[in-house]
C-alpha cells in the first residue's frame, strides 16, 4: 500500500473542496498515513469469495403513492440561506469569466 504524501493530501483536499493551509497539509499527511497504514489490514481477510455488504440489513426499494403532499414553503426553504434574491438561492459565479 502506498504511503500518503503531502502532495496526495493536497489532491485529496482539492477533491474534498477543503482550502487547507500549508501547515495543515503537513499535519494531515502524517496522520492520514498512520491511519491508512492501520486500516489497510482489512485486505488480509477480504477473500475473493466473500460478498461485500453495503448495509447491515437486507434493503429493498421503498415506494409511496405519487401524491402531492404539503412541503416547505419557499420562505422556509430559504430561511437558512447565506444569500437570497427573488425567492432563490443567490450563489457566487459558477462559470469562468469568459463564459
Amino acid at each position, binding site marked *: *500500500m502506498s504511503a*500518503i504524501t503531502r502532495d*496526495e*493530501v493536497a489532491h*485529496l*483536499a*482539492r*477533491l*474534498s*473542496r*477543503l*482550502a*487547507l*493551509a500549508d501547515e*495543515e497539509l503537513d499535519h*494531515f499527511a502524517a*496522520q*492520514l498515513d*498512520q*491511519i*491508512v497504514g*492501520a*486500516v*489497510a*489490514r*482489512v*485486505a*488480509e*481477510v*477480504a*477473500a475473493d469469495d*466473500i*460478498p*461485500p*455488504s*453495503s*448495509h*447491515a*440489513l437486507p*434493503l429493498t*426499494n*421503498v415506494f*409511496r403513492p405519487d401524491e402531492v403532499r404539503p412541503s*416547505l414553503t419557499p420562505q*422556509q*426553504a430559504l*430561511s*437558512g*440561506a*447565506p*444569500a437570497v434574491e427573488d425567492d432563490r*438561492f443567490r*450563489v*457566487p*459565479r*459558477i462559470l*469562468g469569466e469568459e463564459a
Partner: protein
Amino acid sequence: MSLIHRTAAELGRLIATGEASAVEVAQAHLDRIAEVEPKVHAFLHVDPDAVLAQARAVDGRRAAGEPLGPLAGVPIAHKDVFTTADMPTTAGSKILEGWRPPYDATVTRRLREAGLVILGKTNLDEFAMGSSTENSAYGPTHNPWDLTRIPGGSSGGASASVAAYEAPLSTGTDTGGSIRQPAAVTGIVGMKPTYGGSSRYGLIAFASSLDTPGPFARNVLDAALLHEAFSGHDPMDSTSIAQPVPPVVEAARQASVEGLRVGVVKEFGGDGYQPGVLARFQEAVDLLESLGAKVVEVSCPSFAYALPAYYLIAPSECSSNLARFDAMRYGLRVGDDGTRSAEEVMALTRAAGFGPEVKRRIMLGTYALSSGYYDAYYGSAQKVRTLISRDFDAAFHQVDVLVSPTTPTTAFPIGERADDPMAMYLADLCTIPSNLAGNAAISVPCGLADEDGLPVGLQIMAPVLGDDRCYRVGAAVEKAFEDRWGGPLLKEAPAL
C-alpha cells in the same frame, strides 16, 4: 427526595397523578442546569422560557382531563444533531452556527407527541465524529465523575447531562459506539437499538448505514420507556424497519436471566484493556451465572478487523454525506467577495467551518473511495462487514446474548488523545461490531475500576430486533448490582 434525583418513570407518575406539576419538575431541572453547567458544559442551547411553556402545556392537558403518556412532562436533553424547528441545530460545528432548521426530526416530533419537555440541545463531537466530545467547535463537555476527564463521545453532552442530574433522560446517536461508550464512562445506561428501529429522518447524517438514534437514562426501565416513545417505523426514513418496536418496557420489568445462554466474546480482552475494566467485567459475568444464566465462551475471529473496517466505511460515507455543506443553501459562507467562484467559496467555507477531525475523515473517505484504491480499502472493508455479520449469526446460534466490556478503559483525561486519532479510535473497539452488523446493544454500569475509581460499563449485545433481550438482561444485572451496592452506581459520584 428532590425532583432531580427521581427516575423518569417516577416523574411521569407524579405528574400524571398531580403530585407534582410539569412546571415544578422543569423548574427543578432548569435550576440544576444553572447550578452545574459552568462546570459540566453539557448543553449548547437552553431557553428556560420555552422549557416552561412546554411544561405548562402538559399541565394544561392534565387539567383538561386528557390522558397523559408515561413520560408526559418528563424533561429530556436532546442531542444537537437532531433538527428542531424551534431551537438552533449545530451538530457541534461552526459551519451550522446559528442555523434554525425548517423542520423537526422524527425523533424530535415523537418526543413532543409523548409530552416530553425538551430542556435544550446537548454538546457533541462535531457531526458526531469522536469519542470524547473534544471535537465540538463549542468546547469540551466535562465528566461529572471527574471534571478533568472526557464524558465519552460523540454523545458526551447527553451522557454528562444525565449523570449530572440536569436531565433524567437524553437522546443520543450511535454510529460506532457514540451512545454506549459515553454511557459506560459516566456510569449510566445507554442503548443502541437495532439499525432501522429508530428513525434517521432529520438526524444530520454522518454515516447513513450505521447512524442509530437511541436513549440514555440513569436506569434500564427509563431507557426502555424512552426507547419505546421515539422508536418504530417511519415512512420518512427508507431504511426504517416496518415492524413493531420489540417489547422493551416489558423486558425491562421482567429483569430475569434464568435459563438464558450468555456468550463471552473471547476476542475482547487482553492487551490494551485496563485491568480494573476486566476485573469488573469478570464480576458481571460471575453475577450473570449466579443469577441462573448459562455462560459460555464464544469466538468471533473477524471482530479483530471491525475497527479498521469501520474507519474505512464511516469516513467513506461521511465524505459523501458532508458534501451537502456547500455554502449555498444554508449554513456558513466565507469569502464571497464578488470575485471568487462558487467552488472557491465552497472550499474556503469548508476549510473555515469544519474542525480537524471532520477534515481528516472527509479526506480519508475520499481516499478510500478513489479509483485505484476503492477495492483495496472500501471494498475490503465491506467484505469484513459481511464476515462480522457471519460471526454474530454463528454466535447467536449458540447463545441468546453476547457480553463484553463496553470500552477498553475508563474515562481518559481531556487532552490526552486529542491529537492522536488512532489512540482515540480505540475507545470504540468493543462497540463497533454491532454497528457494522446492525444488531442491538446496551451498556449498563458494572462498577468502578480499582485504579481510578471511575465507572465501567457492561455491554450486552442481542440479535437484530432482539432489543428486548438487552433490556431484560440489563435490568437483571442492574437489580443484582444495586442490591449489592445499596443503590445505583451514580450515588458514588462526587457532588458537583
